[in-house]
């Protein structure tokens, strides 16, 4: 009997030991004494500027002694971060500053607490007019939700561009200057696939509808209009038809997942790739061929529209002191040099208007790199990532992905788009 008690207490002892070991590892919070702690949640993996985040935070922490920022990487991109935010909320906590993916803007603002930057600025006279000085109106508007609240500030900005494998283009006799419209891209892709061993085009098929949105909205169709799905019209059909034809009819475009497709482009098996600008570093560092870039095209005679990828920065804490601290850190992140480092490290576009002019390296990058240049020039064409309202937005996005899969697998376009539109609108009611 005694010995069995020993066994049971051994169990408890092991748990206890593990507890001690664990708490030692995570008990350094308390040493910071009087300083205000700002928990900053980001999604920047090591391949996506993780180091830059660390460096910026370090620089900020060393620049003053009031505030200490504690960065925390969240795996699984914006979706992973949202999961963690859910858990934290379920436990009754919230970080101070978080990156919110554009596609989660509505979901986040409907379900979580946030404070508008204007609320904070109101009390600080020196920051009056800060927002207007820093951001283009269309860029700032990206972070405004359907109810008109400013959820946060645009931070990571990406747009899709066309990456070009110049070796293949030269072999096929396609000139980058020709790629001015989607129709032209289709022709070029056809030429490439017919005259070389390679695929002509790859449009990223990530677990989102981002690239397709660029395609459709640049044919004057709208994914969403007045809070309702509105893509199932002639313009929309036409845009999708062009995409589907390249895959099913011309067989000039590659239809594959985004990891494999990006790999295929980098290894030199695809001529043109419609990918986020955030892939620039990965591609230019690893491709063995000459890479160039041109802006995403529109359809003939239509206005170019590029959806904003990336994230906004939202202040989520209730604590006023922390709100102030988070704001200080935010301003630091938007300083020209910080933005330059950010752009360099992540491949994202500078979200502020003054960064390029105030930082020589950034200016040089923008002037010399065709890919960066292409993306940067698209900023004036930026539109928000289809912000479906309410709690069903995530599901609406999922339906758009399903629609893409169906159409690219050969489903009739009109029917499928209409059905999806109807399904989404039923959801949104």
């Amino acid at each position: 009997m005694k010995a069995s008690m020993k066994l049971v207490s051994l169990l408890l002892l092991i748990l206890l030991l593990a507890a001690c070991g664990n708490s030692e590892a995570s008990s350094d919070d308390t040493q910071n004494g009087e300083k205000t702690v700002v928990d900053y949640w980001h999604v920047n993996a090591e391949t996506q500027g993780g180091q830059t985040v660390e460096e910026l935070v370090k620089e900020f922490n060393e620049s003053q002694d009031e505030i200490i920022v504690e960065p925390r990487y969240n795996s699984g991109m914006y979706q992973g971060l949202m999961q963690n935010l859910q858990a934290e909320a379920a436990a009754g906590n919230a970080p101070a500053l978080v990156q919110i993916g554009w596609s989660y803007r509505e979901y986040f603002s409907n379900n979580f607490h946030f404070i508008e930057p204007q609320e904070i600025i109101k009390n600080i006279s020196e920051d009056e007019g800060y927002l207007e000085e820093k951001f283009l109106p269309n860029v700032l508007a990206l972070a405004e939700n359907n109810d008109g609240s400013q959820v946060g500030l645009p931070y990571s900005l990406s747009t899709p561009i066309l990456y070009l494998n110049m070796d293949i283009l030269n072999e096929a006799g396609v000139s980058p200057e020709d790629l001015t419209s989607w129709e032209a891209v289709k022709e070029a892709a056809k030429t490439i696939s017919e005259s070389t061993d390679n695929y002509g085009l790859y449009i990223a098929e990530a677990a989102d509808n981002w690239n397709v949105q660029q395609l459709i909205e640049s044919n004057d169709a709208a994914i969403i209009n007045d809070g309702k799905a509105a893509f199932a019209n002639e313009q929309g059909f036409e845009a999708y038809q062009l995409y589907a034809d390249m895959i099913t009819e011309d067989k000039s475009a590659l239809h594959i997942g985004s990891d494999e497709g990006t790999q295929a482009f980098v290894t030199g098996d695809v001529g043109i790739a419609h990918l986020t600008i955030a892939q620039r570093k990965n591609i230019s560092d690893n491709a063995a061929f000459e890479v160039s870039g041109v802006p995403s095209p529109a359809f003939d005679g239509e206005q170019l529209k590029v959806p904003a990828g990336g994230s906004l920065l939202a202040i989520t804490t209730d604590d006023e002191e922390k709100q102030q601290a988070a704001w200080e850190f935010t301003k630091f992140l938007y300083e020209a040099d910080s933005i330059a480092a950010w752009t360099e490290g992540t491949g994202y576009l500078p979200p502020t208007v003054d960064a390029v002019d105030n930082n020589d390296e950034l200016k040089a990058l923008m002037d010399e790199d065709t890919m960066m240049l292409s993306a940067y020039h698209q900023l004036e064409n930026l539109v928000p990532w289809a912000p479906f309202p309410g709690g069903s937005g995530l599901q609406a996005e999922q339906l758009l992905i399903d629609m893409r899969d169906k159409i690219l697998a050969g489903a009739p376009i009109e029917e499928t788009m209409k059905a999806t539109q109807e399904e989404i609108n039923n959801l949104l009611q």
Partner: protein
Amino acid sequence: MRTNSFLGILWHTIFILTVFILIFPIIFALGTSFKPLQEVYNNVLNIIPIAPTFDNYIGLFERLPMIQITMNTFTIATVVTIMKMLISFLAAYAFVYFDFKGKKFIYFIFIASIFIPFTVTMIPNYLIMSSWGLADSIFGVILPQISDAIGILLINQTMRSIPFSLIESARIDNISHSRIMIDIILPLIRPQLMSTGIWFFVNSWNEFVWPSLMLKSVDSYTLPLALQMFISAEGGTDLSVAMAVSIVTMIIPLLLYLVFQKYIIGTFTASGIK
């Protein structure tokens, strides 16, 4: 046993091919982990790197708290293994050596729980851990992993191989149950327990889904989670570093296996499910 040589050659060919398919990915990962990323993309077929480099490993240890991450993985796997073995051992002992009301039914309930897919308990466990403040703690990872009836099943099987009279002999000598466990059962089934333990350890070491839901900060990561830091939908996948992480992740399980393989295969073979 003699068989005709054609059949033998045919089957040897099939076996060698199978072994190749199973082992090739590991060799491929090893080769890739010593390649610069550019070479990964452009020299797909060179398993042995043209320009071998340690940069992937060096960079990995510079960029991530790999020691901490390995320690986390080790701590979780060790605690899970010991706890799971202990509670399963106690339960199996009760099931094998006692008669009590409802024994069969209770045993059935536990064994049936093996059939519950992890998605069924995932959300509530997630909520429990969050509300206990154990999200992002190794405890949040450990606790649900301990509650796995496979341990009861396997140890129960093993215990049954001990002649009942040994326990009766001890009981008649007024030896307490705990003493019987320690002095008699434990030494007799130690090899099987070791193998089972190694198996649990490796499974917990490799566990991905639950830790990926639980653990948030890099400092509390486990090795399989470190892997995904080099895979990003937007920034691209750094395959060569990812493979370096993979190799680091594999080392302990493979060492355990190769050192104890005769022993592991031996006990798996000797005590197989009857």
